[in-house]
């Protein structure tokens, strides 16, 4: 969409200001993490790694990190297992109730997470699953499912069904058609969906704060509870590690899909 005229200076200045606005809070977190003081301050009059060493002395944060990592991986995998067949049905078939089913499967995007949080806390308490890891996993699975579904539907809508029909007419079973033809074709959407689902589960706070108990705290919940009491440089160093890890994932996503497409569910 490049235009014949050059972008006017005010717009260029605005663009830079916007970039600074987006990066400033993150840059602050990174800078503050290198302070040698015991409180939040800039590292310019004394820098150190002490707050990174402090992470190693905070086993509850490390436990929470591994728990979030495992939870994200399991929830994303379960959500993918549910979303792939549903996405293929929605993309390739016209059937009564299709829109209603699509709406239901995307509904967690419409419901505020605080509402889902109390609803699931109450529900899991009644069935005896509150403060268990499986309750938390089930909750995360449903809230990340829409992200996978959108990408699977987008990927499946794009491709030519006649290949699958050709295989079928040559005697391939439904399972063979799925495994050898359909799945490989939608695999980029599935992989992108899994990754976005994983990131969303890993970052989720508002619902987890209700569903997680003291023994199943995820990393964002642990960090939030810590911030609610005190803001110290330890949080800044943990956040910096998270920013770095996210940056790596971001590069992967941008390289293979383009951030705009994968984030708006159009890959």
């Amino acid at each position: 969409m490049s235009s014949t005229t050059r972008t006017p200076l005010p717009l260029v200045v605005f663009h830079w200001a916007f970039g600074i606005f987006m990066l400033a809070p993150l840059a602050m977190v990174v800078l503050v993490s290198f302070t040698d003081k015991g409180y939040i301050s800039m590292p310019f009059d004394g820098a150190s790694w002490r707050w990174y060493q402090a992470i190693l002395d905070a086993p509850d944060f490390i436990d929470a990190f591994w728990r979030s990592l495992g939870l994200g991986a399991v929830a994303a995998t379960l959500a993918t297992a549910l979303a792939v067949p549903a996405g293929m049905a929605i993309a390739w078939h016209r059937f009564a109730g299709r829109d209603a089913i699509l709406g239901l499967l995307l509904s967690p995007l419409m419901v505020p997470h605080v509402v889902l949080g109390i609803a699931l806390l109450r529900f899991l308490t009644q069935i005896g699953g509150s403060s268990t890891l499986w309750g938390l996993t089930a909750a995360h699975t449903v809230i990340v499912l829409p992200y996978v579904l959108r990408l699977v539907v987008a990927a499946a809508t794009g491709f030519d069904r006649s290949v699958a029909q050709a295989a079928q007419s040559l005697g391939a079973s439904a399972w063979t058609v799925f495994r050898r033809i359909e799945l490989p074709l939608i695999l980029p959407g599935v992989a992108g969906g899994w990754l976005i689902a994983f990131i969303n589960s890993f970052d989720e706070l508002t619902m987890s704060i209700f569903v997680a108990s003291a023994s199943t705290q995820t990393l964002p919940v642990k960090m939030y509870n810590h911030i609610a009491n005190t803001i110290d440089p330890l949080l800044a160093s943990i956040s910096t590690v998270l920013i770095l890890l996210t940056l790596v994932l971001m590069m992967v996503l941008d390289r293979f899909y383009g951030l705009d497409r994968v984030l708006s569910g159009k890959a």
Partner: protein
Amino acid sequence: MDERRNLLPYWLSAPGVIAMLALVALPLVLTLSLSLYPFDPAVGVGEGLTGANYADIATDEYFRTIFARTFGMALMVTALCIAVGVPEAYVLSRLSSRWRAVSMVIVLGPLLISVVVRTLGWAVLLGNEGVINKSLMALGMIDSPIRMIFTFTGVVVALVHVLVPFMVLAVWASLQKLDPATEQAAESLGAGLPTVLARIVFPQVIPGVLSGGLIVFALAASAFATPAIIGGRRLKVVPTTVYDEFLGNLNWPLGAALAVVLLVIVLAVSLGMNRFVERRWKQVFQ
């Protein structure tokens, strides 16, 4: 196609549908029913159905203030996201592909970073001992810190930062559908850039602005972490109030009623707006 074939899409979507019914629909219905029970300090949830929780929310000045603040905040955040996000999306569309890739990471990347981390950054910037106040004092521009954390303005700024990528994304999507020839035609007929923007570009991206605005509004009204950390205990919004009722006062029925009202308002705005957009800009979605 035989009968078995026709049932296939239902079989394929059944596992997902069952998961949603069991873990989203059913819990929401249970929350609705929970909100109709009285609160009993001894056992938590009392006996007998009542509308008292909703009556409380409707009549108590305390809750009315909280709802007004929440939706006032959400509207303001939405307006600012439109004011900032639309021009940014337009600049993105004009950048060379290399600069665009870099800018995309800067603009959209923060979406992948936890809201807790992003809000922590704003707490560091806005605090009384924070970076902005310390720099201004060091420069001698102010004598005492300006109060920014625990203020309405502080929460709005931080929420705009958290949510503006959604606006850029939505407008960017509709800018990509634009035919550059229309812009060029207007330019070749002597229209300056302001005219091209106002008469050609903006009218065509309004659906994107509206759908982005809807996402931002719904997420701003239901935001928890940012108002809780930047707003503090005194600047309560509906989600933080639900949290306090549920986990602080242990008044689950009242917390459930607050959640139901929040859900109904957010859904009503979303569905109403969707209807409006689809009817008004029907041709765009075909």
